[in-house]
């Protein structure tokens, strides 16, 4: 591998410079500079030190931490049976279920919030004894819905890679099923569980749209407080002080999470024999749980979008093309905006992520680490901090992007790039160096090796990454809600947020319809790719 990298650099220094510079400049201008600006604003102001004596701040911080912790524990416990089913059993529809479980992960936060609003409406949970609306239970349920998929993936695929003969050995030594799980399986899964937990905790810690819409006015986390100060009150000093706290906390979490993921890295890979066929009760109980947790919110959302007060019809969907006074443009126009932005964001993410992957895999060690870490940061750093940073950093020459309409897709591309990186880098790394060497010995120059071996092998991974970047962009809410607005450039998630936040049956119906459309767009883009790639054996990185 060293040999071809060296030849590549020597022969085409200029091209290589471009490959390094594009992601570096992109990251520098649109991510690192805003982060630096937020830090400097936060540290220079007095607000940060005042926070230490602010009881409200401590209450917010405490709530942020404990809701994230509770969501994590709940998700892990609920995901274990499903992970076991996917990892160890053969059954009809296994692949479909696997693909379906990725849908919530890319579902826009506002759509998830919408789905739970739909459930509360449908089953009368808005008040009374079983009130869910504006309770912490609503937040936890939504977070479980979101993150179940991550745990299923991370733990499930790790579990799949574990040699089941070890469990069989334990059985033969006299351990009952419970003992096997407690003393053998659980400890062996620990690295994957820890890794999944750290990711879920991070996501819940930085959850924004869900908390804003489901938590009600009294439940504030760091994220919603930053937004409230910056966007509602224009109090940039307080917002940046909070953003500093958020940044530091998130960085620490990212570091911990990276550690845990690296520990998970060196896992055993054993070729397993045929899997046992799942028995009906096992399958039924599991599917019931998974469908209840993942399927129900989606189903109810669809049902609500069709309900009109007197029977079912498509009239809510028809109404999407009409402008309501609440929004500057019709919901349909907002959808078109979102799709357009998503295409631009995807193209950017593929370009930046593709180049960065090359640097991570073939670049010098230091450069490789820098890109690997640097470009993953936007995924870790919350979207809210990202949007806030862009808001305060890119408003003065030479970096005045306030009136630049493509700032939104740029922000989305920053969030999408890590997905491209996470799918492409492992695939590139998995290419046996000997396959490259074999190609070279058959006379292929380094560029021919890239074109004929690496690209065909990694191309599908690039497509998977692109699909995720697209889905993420279509549904992006946190960062977009900070960025300068052109009324006619409203995105669909923002439109949905406003529709959901306003009472009234007509608007609610439209909101449900818009949420369903967004769900279908994001879900389909990932499902199509996911279905194809799992057939063709693309290995997706876990997030």
């Amino acid at each position: 591998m060293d040999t071809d990298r060296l030849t590549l650099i020597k022969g085409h220094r200029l091209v290589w410079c471009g490959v390094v510079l594009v992601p570096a400049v992109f990251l520098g201008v649109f991510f690192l500079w805003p982060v630096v600006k937020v830090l400097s604003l936060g540290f220079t102001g007095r607000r940060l030190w005042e926070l230490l004596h602010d009881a409200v701040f401590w209450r917010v911080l405490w709530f942020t931490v404990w809701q994230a912790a509770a969501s994590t524990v709940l998700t892990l416990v609920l995901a274990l049976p499903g992970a076991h089913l996917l990892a160890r059993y053969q059954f009809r529809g296994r692949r479909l279920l696997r693909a379906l479980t990725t849908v919530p992960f890319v579902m826009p936060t506002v759509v998830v919030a919408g789905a739970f609003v739909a459930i509360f409406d449908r089953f009368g949970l808005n008040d009374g004894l079983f009130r869910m609306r504006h309770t912490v239970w609503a937040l936890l349920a939504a977070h479980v819905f979101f993150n179940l998929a991550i745990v299923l993936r991370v733990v499930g695929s790790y579990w799949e890679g574990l040699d089941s003969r070890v469990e069989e050995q334990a059985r033969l030594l006299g351990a009952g099923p419970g003992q096997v799980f407690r003393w053998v399986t659980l400890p062996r899964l620990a690295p994957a569980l820890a890794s999944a937990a750290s990711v879920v905790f991070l996501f819940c810690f930085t959850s924004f749209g869900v908390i804003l819409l489901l938590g009600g006015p009294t439940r504030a986390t760091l994220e919603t407080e930053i937004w409230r100060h910056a966007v509602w009150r224009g109090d940039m000093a307080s917002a940046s002080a909070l953003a500093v706290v958020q940044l530091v906390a998130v960085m620490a979490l990212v570091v911990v999470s990276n550690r845990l993921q690296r520990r998970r890295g060196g896992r055993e890979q054993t070729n397993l024999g045929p899997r046992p066929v799942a028995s009906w009760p096992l399958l039924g109980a599991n599917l019931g749980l998974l469908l209840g947790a993942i399927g129900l919110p989606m189903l109810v959302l669809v049902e609500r979008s069709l309900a009109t007060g007197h029977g079912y019809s498509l009239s809510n969907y028809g109404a999407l093309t009409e402008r309501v006074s609440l929004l500057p443009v019709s919901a349909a126009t907002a959808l078109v905006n979102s799709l357009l932005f998503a295409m631009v964001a995807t193209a950017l993410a593929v370009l930046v992520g593709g180049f960065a992957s090359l640097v991570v895999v073939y670049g010098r060690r230091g450069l490789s680490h820098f890109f690997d870490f640097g470009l993953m940061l936007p995924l870790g750093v919350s979207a809210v901090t990202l949007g806030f940073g862009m808001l305060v950093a890119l408003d003065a020459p030479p970096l005045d992007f306030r009136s630049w309409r493509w700032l939104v897709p740029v922000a989305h591309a920053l969030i999408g790039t890590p997905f491209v990186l996470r799918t492409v880098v492992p695939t590139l790394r998995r290419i046996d160096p000997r396959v490259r060497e074999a190609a070279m010995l058959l006379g292929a120059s380094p560029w021919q090796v890239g074109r004929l071996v690496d690209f065909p092998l990694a191309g599908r991974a690039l497509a998977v990454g692109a699909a995720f970047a697209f889905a993420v962009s279509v549904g992006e809410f946190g960062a977009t809600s900070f960025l300068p607005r052109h009324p006619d450039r409203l995105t669909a998630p923002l439109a949905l947020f406003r529709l959901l936040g306003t009472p009234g049956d007509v608007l609610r119906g439209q909101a449900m319809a818009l949420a369903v459309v967004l769900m279908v767009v994001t879900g389909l883009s990932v499902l199509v790719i996911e279905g194809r790639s799992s057939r063709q054996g693309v290995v997706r990185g876990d997030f």
Partner: protein
Amino acid sequence: MLRLEGVSVCFGQNHVLNQVDLSVAAGEVLVLLGPSGCGKSTLLRTIAGLETPSEGQLFWGAQDLTGLPAHQRGFGMMFQDHALFGHLSVADNVAFGLRIAGWGAELCQKKVAELMALVGLVGFEGRSVDALSGGEAQRVALARSLAPDPRLLMLDEPLASLDRALRDRLVSDLGQLLRELGQSAIYVTHDHGEAFALADRIAVMDGGQIARCGRPVEVWADPRTEAVARSIGHQNILSLDDQGHCVLGRLGGQAGLVLVRSDGLRLAPTGVAARVVGSVFSQGRYDLQVEAGGQLLQLSAVESVGLGDLVYLAWSDDAVVPLRSSST
């Protein structure tokens, strides 16, 4: 044709190859034999151009290869784990080198068909390489590396991942094929059986150096060092005391090591007494392990003897070969 002069390779502080001189003649099959970690794979990769020597030079005839990148050397290589292109069909794998060389589709197809016949895989062209068995994958890898008519074919333990029976069959197939094609080849293995079956010449490696190089019969008869003797399967290595004595009597003039080749050691009516501690019947003969004065010895005999029997050993003088204890 291929000549290495004082080639050394370092990984960091670690000298993996140390001043290696080696040559391969046209049409010759040279086998590099040695235990794992002796540097034989590194030597092969250096010849291929996949590692860069820190010292020394490589030549092909009069052409200096030292700085030439791998893809311009015109050498073929077959890897232990096949390294097939997973995204291409069997035929496209085999045709890869031809396409790179700019062959037209029709010519490619003809050549691929030829090669498939040569390795006995007619009808496999359209298959996915993931669907192949180990032996089939091995044949595809061989066809692929032979396709561009390499001036030198290198085989890095190509049969190590296969089971015994398949390996024995493929070794003889491979030897025949290489001879028929008049293909110059370097074959790396740690299995002395394979080495003797294939080699025109054997080079035994030890500690990053060629410890012994010669025709198989020469190397077998006189391995010269203990490490070489062990690499090629000799087991009766005895230490002599200051007067040159060991359990078999006086076999030398001074302290040192001596090899008593099992092919010269036999059971006799009288001689040095030994007790049978192991007996394995194999291919019409008994592979015996006997113990004399605390020393274990191997020999093969036609007589059936039981465990614990007392036997007498005799040997021919030319089966006794002095050894140096380490490679210097």
